[in-house]
């Protein structure tokens, strides 16, 4: 096999243009690092919105004067609904207690009220799959039909905005990742293209001596791979510094940031991504090798 010789040619070429190649590697690393940051942001938005369904609830306010039995039958009906995970009855006085709990020292607000103004209610949690705009609307409409329910309340506004934030973040980050990837490919492409043109004469001679396409391409594909992997490793190092600073230094000052998650798969994924983009750039730069 000629691959050993190709490797030698690649190393020679990489070394001959070491400064330009170093610059390319740093550019690739910067691109991959920005992809990492983007990914980190969406990943956490995604996580946050995934945790949401567990907290999301729909409140059903019951008609005044409903007996516990009537409330019980409403709960039974609710539980028949496929979208409902659980339903919890909150009696009038319980609701008042909860409100007092929330108000704590400010419970003087309630002073002088001789009658409990709060209605009895049922809090329902929906199954994960149903916590989306369409799903919640549908359930709300169905529940409203049940007799004895005065009002259905859920954070429609909230749900809408979460949905659009998530959509925008996804679309924005996806386009950023695509642009950045194209940028990384382009850096590899132009670096390899330059190397190829510099050796055009020699390649013509190789062809006349009977070199195959594989023999001609291999050193450049190796060069592209080395640039890509090096960029990937450098960006992984940068990502690690970012991770370290964020989770060990910044969180000490701003503890809430501890809820952020940095996926560890990023570290091995970066060199692999660099490799693939590097090979891609090299292959595009080489194009079709013609013999006649």
């Amino acid at each position, binding site marked *: *096999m*000629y691959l*050993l*010789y190709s490797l030698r040619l690649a190393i020679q070429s990489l070394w001959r243009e070491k400064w330009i190649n170093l610059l390319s590697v740093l550019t690739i690393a910067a691109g991959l690092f920005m992809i990492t940051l983007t990914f980190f942001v969406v990943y956490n938005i995604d996580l946050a919105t995934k945790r949401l369904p567990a907290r999301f609830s729909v409140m059903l306010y019951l008609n005044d004067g409903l007996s516990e039995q009537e409330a019980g039958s409403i709960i039974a009906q609710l539980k028949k609904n496929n979208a409902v995970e659980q339903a919890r009855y909150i009696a009038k006085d319980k609701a008042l207690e909860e409100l007092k709990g929330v108000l704590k020292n400010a419970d003087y607000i309630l002073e002088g009220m001789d009658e409990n103004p709060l209605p009895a209610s049922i809090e329902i949690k929906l199954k994960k799959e149903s916590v989306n705009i369409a799903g919640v609307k549908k359930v709300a409409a169905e529940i409203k039909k049940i007799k004895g329910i005065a009002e259905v309340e859920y954070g429609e506004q909230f749900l809408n905005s979460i949905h659009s934030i998530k959509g925008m973040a996804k679309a924005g980050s996806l386009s950023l990742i695509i642009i950045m990837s194209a940028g990384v490919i382009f850096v590899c492409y132009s670096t390899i293209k330059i190397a190829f043109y510099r050796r055009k004469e*020699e390649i*013509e*001679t*190789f*062809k*006349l*001596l*009977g*070199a*195959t*396409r594989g*023999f001609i391409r291999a050193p450049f594909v190796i060069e592209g791979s080395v640039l890509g992997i090096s960029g990937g490793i450098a960006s992984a190092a940068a990502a690690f510094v970012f991770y370290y600073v964020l989770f060990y230094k910044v969180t000490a000052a701003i503890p809430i940031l501890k809820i952020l998650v940095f996926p560890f798969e990023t570290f091995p994924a970066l060199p692999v991504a660099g490799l693939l983009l590097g090979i891609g750039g090299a292959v595009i730069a080489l194009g079709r090798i*013609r*013999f*006649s």
Partner: protein
Amino acid sequence: MIHFSNVTKFYERQAAIKNVTFSIEKGEMVFMTGPSGAGKSTLLKIIYLSEKPDEGSVTIAEWDLSKLKESSIPFLRRNIGVVFQDFRLLDNRNVFDNVAIALRIRGMLDSEIQDWVMEILKMVNLRHKADSFPQALSGGEQQRVVIARAIVGEPTILLADEPTGNLDTDTAAGITRLFKEINARGTTVVIATHNRELYRNTGRRVFRIDSGNIVGEEIG
């Protein structure tokens, strides 16, 4: 081994080869001679597939060039050793590497080629220059490196385009002897040259070429 049938080659509407027909058999040694610009190099280029004929058909060792797949070209070329008129040496590689490249292209490892390349360099009297770079060689030395590279792969066809252009009479005679030896081992040899000395009294066929035509054939 090499068959041209009504071959024409144009360069910018100017025919460099005009309706040429000839046959060279396996194991032959043939000379092509004629004035500068006659079309000798163009003929050889067609044989080693560097130029495509515009008309006519060419067959090299059973391969009809018009039907040859592009991906097969390298493998056909490996059977054809070429002494290029313009040398085509790699300036950034030493003599050893310039010769060895013909074998490396075939996927051979350094350990396999080391002795063989040195052997060939000895044949062209350049063993002592193995580590020199082409710029540090005389014209004749460079020419011999090209010859070494052409024969190191033991091709079935050897094409030599003005192989003694830069050589003194004695060295030229030595190279001719080398070509004869290679030919004696069964390699078909085609030599394009202005140098009468090369083919005089060889008893080989000599094609006289002028303005893209074969205007005569004689025995040298």
